[in-house]
């Protein structure tokens, strides 16, 4: 019975189980959360083309024959169309020519001593006016021998004038309201003289004269002029080629081994033309203006031009100014920021009238200058900076970070990187690296300046909570890159389009509750 009573007690106890006080569990809190997450942040490979391209707003990048990258800056030196010149010739034609002789040979005294061999009209009209003051009717036969139709016949016309009665208006003839279209004609002077003839006869065959006889060449437009065009100077004006490579430059020196300036000439004028360099100098970052000195500059640059059997073709020429014929290497090694020039063009510079040239209505010349900076050279403490807006965003619960930075440099250039974090007044409040150490060592180069193998460097950067908080609020950051070729001493290094810098950044981020 005692056992039964004990079991009964146990049974009653069973019915009351589950009444444990768990109130404290409701108030339980998680302890300080201290997790560390390892995450990859950045994995970028930048070729030198990427780096330069994103900063080039004016120039361009080209790859040279040996894959060497070249910075290219171009500008127009001189560009002219033939219409500017042809208009001058058109305006030099007299509007009316008096026909004071039945066999007229009229010298052409046109612009700048123009000695015309041939002129083809694209548009224009021929007009005449003549009177009869004779008391007999006239039979007029006119021939403009120098004005030849495309079918080979000279411009001709015949007309009759009534006899003058002695009173009232004299009988006259004119085509002013309906000029003869000159579109199909060309003017072919004889010894720079235009030749025209006419005859006037009475009905009885008596030779008489017309009076007040004038002809006019109106609304002329030419498609072709051939001959000695005279000496004509065409002003080019001052212009500039900006070099923005040094836009973010802070200090230091960079030396380009083989800089060059080229003039590219396209010319379809069939006349000798020379570029007259009035100004040509390089302005450096320091504000100095250093003149380019070269015999080429002094002598002027003669344009190639098409000959009479090359009408319609474009003659091309290139004039190279480099370290063999100028002081350009010195100038472009001195941190140039722009090239300034003023170049005019002189047609028939030697004024040799024996040289017959031509101009068509589509002739032009175009002179362009190109500054080419091959990325082959040396750098000493060359430093560039760029200020960027920065918003790290809410870092959430990140209270520490250990960055692991792996850089792999395929360039022969040592690159020192630093990031400064700025406050809203742009005062520095922290930096990524505590020391300005060059963390991307340059690759060793061979004798031609080409890197032999890439260099890899691993760097660890610790950010404790106080640094994280500072950086979190920074609205700006300054990227600073320092370049030098210290690793390769005085050996010039060659930057090729395939070279680049790989930057990989991972971080172990410490997270906590708040």
């Amino acid at each position, binding site marked *: 019975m005692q056992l*039964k009573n004990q*079991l*009964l007690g*146990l*049974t009653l*106890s*069973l*019915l009351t*189980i*589950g009444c*444990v006080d*768990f109130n*404290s*569990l409701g*108030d*339980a*809190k*998680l*302890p300080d*959360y*201290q*997790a*560390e*997450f*390892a*995450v*990859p*942040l*950045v*994995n*970028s490979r*930048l070729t030198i083309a*990427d*780096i330069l391209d*994103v*900063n080039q707003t004016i120039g361009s990048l080209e790859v040279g024959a040996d894959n060497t990258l070249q910075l290219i800056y171009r500008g127009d030196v001189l560009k002219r169309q033939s219409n500017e010149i042809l208009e001058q010739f058109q305006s030099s034609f007299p509007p009316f020519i008096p026909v004071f002789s039945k066999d007229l040979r009229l010298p052409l005294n046109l612009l700048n001593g123009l000695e015309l061999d041939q002129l083809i009209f694209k548009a224009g009209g021929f007009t005449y006016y003549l009177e009869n003051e004779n008391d007999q009717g006239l039979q007029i036969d006119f021939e403009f021998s120098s004005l030849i139709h495309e079918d080979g016949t000279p411009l001709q016309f015949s007309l009759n004038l009534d006899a003058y009665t002695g009173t009232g208006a004299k009988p006259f003839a004119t085509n002013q309201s309906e000029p003869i279209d000159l579109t199909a004609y060309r003017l072919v002077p004889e010894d720079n003289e235009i030749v025209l003839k006419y005859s006037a006869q009475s009905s009885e065959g008596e030779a008489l004269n017309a009076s007040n006889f004038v002809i006019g060449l109106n609304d002329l437009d030419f498609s072709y002029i051939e001959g000695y065009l005279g000496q004509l100077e065409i002003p080019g004006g001052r212009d500039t080629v900006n070099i923005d490579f040094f836009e973010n430059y802070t200090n230091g020196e960079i030396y380009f081994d083989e800089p060059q300036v080229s003039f590219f000439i396209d010319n379809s004028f069939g006349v000798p033309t020379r570029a007259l360099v009035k100004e040509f100098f390089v302005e450096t970052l320091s504000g100095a203006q250093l003149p380019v000195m070269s015999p080429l500059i002094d002598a002027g640059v003669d344009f190639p031009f098409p000959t009479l059997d090359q009408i319609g073709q474009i003659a091309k020429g290139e004039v190279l100014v480099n370290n063999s014929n100028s002081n350009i290497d010195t100038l472009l090694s001195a941190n140039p920021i722009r090239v300034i020039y003023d170049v005019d063009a002189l047609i028939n510079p030697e004024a040799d009238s024996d040289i017959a040239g031509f101009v068509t209505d589509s002739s032009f010349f175009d002179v362009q200058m190109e500054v080419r900076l091959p990325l082959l050279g040396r750098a000493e403490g060359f430093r560039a900076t*760029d200020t*960027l*807006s*920065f*918003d*790290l*965003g809410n870092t959430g619960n990140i209270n520490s970070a250990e960055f*692991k930075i*792996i850089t792999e440099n395929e360039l022969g250039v040592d690159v020192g990187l630093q990031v400064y974090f700025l406050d809203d007044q742009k005062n520095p409040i922290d930096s990524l690296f505590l020391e300005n150490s060059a963390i991307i060592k340059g690759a060793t180069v061979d004798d031609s300046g080409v890197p032999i193998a890439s260099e890899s460097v691993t760097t660890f950067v610790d950010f404790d909570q106080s640094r994280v908080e500072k950086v979190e609020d920074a609205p700006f950051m300054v*990227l600073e890159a320092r370049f030098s070729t210290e690793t390769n001493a005085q050996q010039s290094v060659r930057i090729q389009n395939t070279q680049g810098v790989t*930057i*990989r*950044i*991972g*971080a*172990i981020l410490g*997270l906590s*509750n708040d």
Partner: protein
Amino acid sequence: MQKFLLHICCLMLLTLPLQAQQDIGIHFMQGVWQSNITNPASMPSHKFVLALPGFYNQTRIDNFNINDVIRKDDQGNTLIDLDNVLDKMDVENIIRQQVDIPTVSLGVKINQLFLQIGHSFHVNGYLDYPKKLAQVAWQGNAQFIGETIDIGPDVLAQAYNSFFVGVAGEIAPGVVIGGRFKVLSGTADLSTQRRSLQLTTDTEIYQTQLDADFVVNSTGVINFEGFNRNTGVDFNDSNINFDRLISSNYGLAFDLGVQARFGDWTFAASALDIGSITWREDAKKLSLEGNFEFQGLDILKDVLLDSVSTISLVDTLETQYNVVETSASYTTDLPAKYYFSATIQATDTWRIGGLAYVEQYREKFQTTVGLSANVQLFDFLSAGAIYSFTESESFRLGANTAIRLGPVQLIAATDNLITAFQVQESNSANFRLGLNLLLGKVNRGIDPDKIENQDDFFRN
């Protein structure tokens, strides 16, 4: 992340007080209607039984208990000590939750047969998670730099209604077989179909690689709208109830049992919940498959262009993982259970028994063995104790009782009695409560299994 962990912790802690373990003590409560749940061949001691709403809960959290989870700091504040929990965890860990709510059932003896009909609602929860998943969530992945770890959890959570009919009868002298046929109507499910998530953190700059073959099926639980800060994964637990008895997520299952008596010895075996549910209603499959590598952001050129104002690693990571959602019906098996027992009638009032219980979740089997002693103290009161052992736990002592007041019978059982008094030391719990209305007992005070002529028993 920490809020998520807090929710998980609270969920785990709040389930522990429910007190439960494997439902083995009830198996030996002979003549009690609820023992029929463990073996459909087990008959009650009354001709008519009406079971009123009851409750059964089973919770098991492997490898740690409440004492491992909470601690007091120097100021006396209660803290959840997840670091300690992680120390206690094994390579693989299981959280098991089962809630059964038998709403109503009726058992009637008609001639030689005992018939039953009823309804119950079930919630099964099973989470098999690697320790490394918890470590990554709470401590981060930095500790696994240079390693490949598997963090894929195996999840099965389902809620369903069960409508059943059953019959038991003696097929030979002393040999009773019983069966129960169930029509299932699912209300919600969340289950992994494949669980492989291999996470590698590289040593170089900690590049991560997730080799994923992870597929989750969901019906009425998950709303997935992509990984981003405004949407994400919404868990909807509104379907985990039995308000809606009938759905198009139907399935079939059956229970089978046999009981054989040889003199004072009774041997029993049963297989329960052999069946499955096919989920069709708003069923969706969320797949994360493939090799997802994150090497870091390729942003330096954009930085140089000053076109990057905010660098968002999280946004990038969110777009890395491409979860594909498709609509497709699927089938999940019920966790099957198997009982094997032997009992001897030692005296008129004492019965001694032994049991092996096997539960199958997915491909994993959990085995419990136990010894029981039951006594009929009074005509209205019986009591029992069971001593059991499960692979992942130490020995436990359970107790059970049935009290009858007139036609009303109240039963209570637990398989981990010590936990009732030292809940903070326990990592498992179960508890069953039942209320029955009994009519027509054949032979007051005599166990029907001891009736030599069973035919007479069933005729009474």
